[in-house]
C-alpha cells in the first residue's frame, strides 16, 4: 500500500549518507573492520588462536624474534633475509651401519643464502633421538661449511631422549670464545667477520652416532630471517598479525556491547525520571550526579587488578558504571518538553498506562538521536579497552590491541627501533575511531537538524 510513502524518510536519510563522502569513507572503514572481524573466526578459531598466542616458544620456534613485517622490504634497497627451515625429515638422511653395530646417521642441510645481511639468529632443533639405554647416548657432531669452503666445527651435542633438544647456535658461548667474535652469525656468514656477508650455498653437515639398533635421529635447522609475516613478530616470536586479526572482533564486540549497554539504559531511566517527576526524578538526578563524580577508569583498573582481568567482567563493570551516565540529563530535558505535548495528553485520555506512554510515546521519539550516539559511542569503548590493555589490565584469554601496546611498551619497542610494534595497533585503533566518527558525525547531521548548517 503506502509503505513506500512511509519509508520515504528513511530513504531520504540513506540518500543523504550517500551524498556525504565522509560517511562513505567511514562506512568503508567500518565495513572492512566488520568483514575482518567476521572472517577472523573462520580463518583461525578462537581456541586455536588463544593456544597459539599463549603457546610460547614451542609453537613459535619457526619464526624469528622481533622480526620486522615483510613490507619493511620496500624501505630497503638490499634484500632482507627471510626465515629458512631445513628439516632432515624432508631433505632425507643417510644411515650407515658399522660392524660393531654403531649406526652413523648423516645429513647435509644445504641452503642458498643470497642476502647481504646476516640472519637474525641460527638455531638447531634435534627433534627426535630415540634410544633406551642411558649409557648408549647418541652423539651428534656438527660442521658448518661456508660457500668459500671454510669449515667451522660447531659444538657436539648429546641429546636427551624423546625431548627436542634446542641448540641455539647464535647463543653458544663456547663457540663465540673459540671464534673470538662478538656475533656468531657474523663469523658463520662471512669470510672475515665484519667484512661483508658471503652469498652462495651454505651447508650444515650433521653426523650422528647412535648405538642401538632402532635408534634414530632427526634435526631441523632454522636460519631466522629479519622479516616475518605482514605484521612482524614480538619478543616471544609470536606473529603480531594474529593478535591484530583476533583483536578486531574482540574490540568491535567490546565496543558494540558497551555502547548498546550504555545507550539502552539512559533513555529509559530519563523517561521514568521525566514522566514520574517528583521523588523518582530527584533520586535519579542525584544518582547521575554521584555517578559523574566516580573515577571510572581507576575503578576499572582496581577491578582488573584485584578482582578479575576477564574482559567480559570488565565490560559488565563498564556498563554498570555507565547506567547513570550524564546523557540522562539531556534526555530528561527532552522528555520534559515532550510530555507536555498534546499527543501525550491524548494518550492519557484514552487510558494508556504510564509504562505504555513511556515506552511507546516518549522513548521512540529519542531513537533517531540514539543512532548517531551509538555510532559515536562504539569507538570510545574500543579506546577504553585499549587504554586498560595499555595500562596492563589484559585478559590472558583474549587478544587486544591494547595489550600489544602494553607489550611494546614493556619491551621498549620504540627504544629498539621496533616502531611497527606500536604503529600497527595504534593504526587499527585510529582507523576504528575515525571510521565510526565519520559515520556518527554524518548521522548526527541527518538526525539532528539543528546541526545541519554548521
Amino acid at each position, binding site marked *: 500500500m503506502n509503505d513506500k510513502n*512511509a519509508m520515504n524518510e528513511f530513504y531520504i536519510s540513506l540518500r543523504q549518507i550517500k551524498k556525504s563522502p565522509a560517511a562513505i569513507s567511514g562506512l568503508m572503514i567500518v565495513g572492512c573492520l566488520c568483514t575482518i572481524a567476521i572472517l577472523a573466526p573462520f580463518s583461525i578459531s578462537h581456541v586455536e588462536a588463544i593456544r597459539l598466542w599463549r603457546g610460547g616458544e614451542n609453537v613459535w620456534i619457526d619464526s624469528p624474534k622481533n622480526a620486522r613485517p615483510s613490507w619493511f622490504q620496500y624501505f630497503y634497497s638490499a634484500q632482507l633475509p627471510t626465515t629458512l627451515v631445513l628439516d632432515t625429515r624432508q631433505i632425507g638422511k643417510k644411515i650407515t651401519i658399522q660392524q660393531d653395530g654403531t649406526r652413523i646417521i648423516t645429513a647435509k642441510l644445504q641452503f642458498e643464502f643470497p642476502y647481504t645481511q646476516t640472519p637474525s639468529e641460527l638455531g638447531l632443533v634435534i627433534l627426535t633421538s630415540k634410544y633406551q639405554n642411558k649409557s648408549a647416548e647418541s652423539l651428534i657432531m656438527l660442521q658448518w661449511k661456508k660457500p668459500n669452503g671454510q669449515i667451522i666445527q660447531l659444538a657436539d651435542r648429546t641429546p636427551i631422549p624423546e625431548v627436542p633438544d634446542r641448540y641455539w647456535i647464535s647463543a653458544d658461548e663456547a663457540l663465540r670464545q673459540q671464534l673470538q667474535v662478538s656475533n656468531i652469525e657474523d663469523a658463520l656468514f662471512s669470510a672475515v667477520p665484519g667484512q661483508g656477508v658471503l652469498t652462495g650455498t651454505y651447508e650444515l653437515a650433521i653426523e650422528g652416532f647412535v648405538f642401538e639398533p632402532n635408534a634414530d635421529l632427526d634435526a631441523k635447522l632454522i636460519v631466522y630471517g629479519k622479516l616475518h609475516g605482514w605484521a612482524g613478530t614480538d619478543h616471544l616470536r609470536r606473529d603480531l598479525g594474529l593478535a591484530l586479526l583476533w583483536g578486531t572482533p574482540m574490540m568491535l564486540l567490546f565496543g558494540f556491547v558497551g555502547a548498546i549497554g550504555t545507550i539502552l539504559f539512559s533513555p529509559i531511566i530519563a523517561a521514568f525520571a521525566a514522566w514520574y517527576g517528583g521523588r523518582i526524578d530527584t533520586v535519579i538526578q542525584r544518582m547521575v550526579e554521584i555517578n559523574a563524580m566516580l573515577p571510572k577508569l581507576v575503578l576499572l583498573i582496581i577491578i582488573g587488578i584485584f578482582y578479575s582481568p576477564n574482559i567480559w567482567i570488565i565490560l559488565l563493570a563498564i556498563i554498570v558504571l555507565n547506567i547513570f551516565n550524564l546523557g540522562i540529563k539531556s534526555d530528561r530535558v527532552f522528555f520534559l518538553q515532550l510530555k507536555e505535548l498534546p*499527543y501525550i495528553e491524548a*494518550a492519557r*485520555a484514552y487510558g494508556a498506562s504510564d509504562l505504555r506512554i513511556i515506552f511507546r510515546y516518549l522513548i521512540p521519539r529519542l531513537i533517531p538521536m540514539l543512532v548517531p550516539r551509538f555510532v559515536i559511542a562504539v569507538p570510545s569503548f574500543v579506546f577504553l579497552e585499549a587504554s586498560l590493555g595499555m595500562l596492563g589490565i589484559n585478559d590472558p584469554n583474549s587478544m587486544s590491541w591494547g595489550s600489544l601496546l602494553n607489550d611494546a611498551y614493556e619491551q621498549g619497542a620504540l627504544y629498539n627501533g621496533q616502531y611497527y610494534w606500536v604503529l600497527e595497533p595504534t593504526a587499527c585503533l585510529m582507523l576504528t575511531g575515525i571510521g565510526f566518527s565519520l559515520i556518527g558525525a554524518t548521522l548526527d547531521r541527518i538526525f539532528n537538524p539543528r546541526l545541519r548548517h554548521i
Partner: protein
Amino acid sequence: MDNLLLQVKNLQLYYQTEQGVVRAVDQINFDLHSTQALAVLGESGCGKSSIARALIRLIPRNTKLYTGQIWWRGSDIMTYSEEKLRREIRWSQISIVMPGTNSLNPVLRVAEQISEPLQVHRGISGTAALEQTAKLFQLIGIPANFMQRYAHELSGGMRQRVGLAMALILNPPLIIMDEPTSALDVLTQANIMNTLKRVKHEQNTAFIFITHDIATASELADRVAIMYAGQIVEISNAENFFTTPLHPYSQALIASVPKLRSEQEPQGISGAPPNLLNPLPGCSFAPRCNQRLDKCNNQPPPSFDQGKNCQVKCWLYQ
C-alpha cells in the same frame, strides 16, 4: 429523554498559578442523557476546556482544587482510583477528541494510532484491530490507503478526523469534543460536522461539544450550555436557546454572530472577560451587562429554573 448518562454536581477545578488561584471550573451542574448532544459555548478562557479535562480527570499538575461529583450511570467516578478510572472509564465509557491537530503520536502509523485504545482496553491487535480501523476509516470518510501513513503526512482536517476515529473505536456512550473544528477551514468543518451527525445517528452516541463557534454548535446540539467565568450561566434546550436566549450574555453572544444578507451588524460585547483570579462579589457578568440591576454588583445570582429544562443564573429571572 430516557436514561441519565452523566450527572455533574458542584464540579470545581481551580488552578494554582504564580498570580493566584484561577477558578477555571466553578460550581458546575448539569445532566446529560444518552444520545444527547450538549454544546458548551463560551469565550476563550472561560473554562470550557477545563470542563472536558475535569470530566475525565486529565488535570494539570498545578491543580489547586478538584472537587464535586461526577455520576456516571449511577456511580460517582470522582471516588475512583486513578487506575480504576483509567481502566473502566477513560475511552471505553468517555472518550475525548483533543483540540488542535497535533494530538497524534508522530512515530505511529495512523492505523496503529487509531487501534491503540483497542490494544489498551481490549488487548486486540494485529489484523483484527486493523479490520475495525478500516471500518472506521470508511465511517469518517478517509480513504483506506491513508491507514499506513504517519500523522505528519495528513492534512489538518484528516488528522482531526483520525482523532475522531480514535474516539469512536471503542464505541463509547459519550464523546467529549474539545474545539474539534476550531483550527479548520469552513469546508473541512462542514465535512466533520456531517460526519459527527452521521455518527450520532448511527452509533447513538452522546456528545459534549465544546466550542466558541455558535454556528457549528447549532448544527449538532440538543442542549446548549453557556459558560462565563468558569460557570454555566444558562443551560437549555437548543431549539429554545437559539430562538429565545434568556441570559443577557447569551443574548449578546447570539447578537455577535454575523448573519448573511442582513443589514443587522454583529454586536460585540463591550468590556473584557473577567479575571478568573479575583472573582467579583456579585454576578461576574455584571460590569458588561446592559440590563444590570443593583443587586447584581454584590450578590451572585443562584440558578433559576425557567421550565423546559432551562436554568439561568441571572437576577432578571428570579
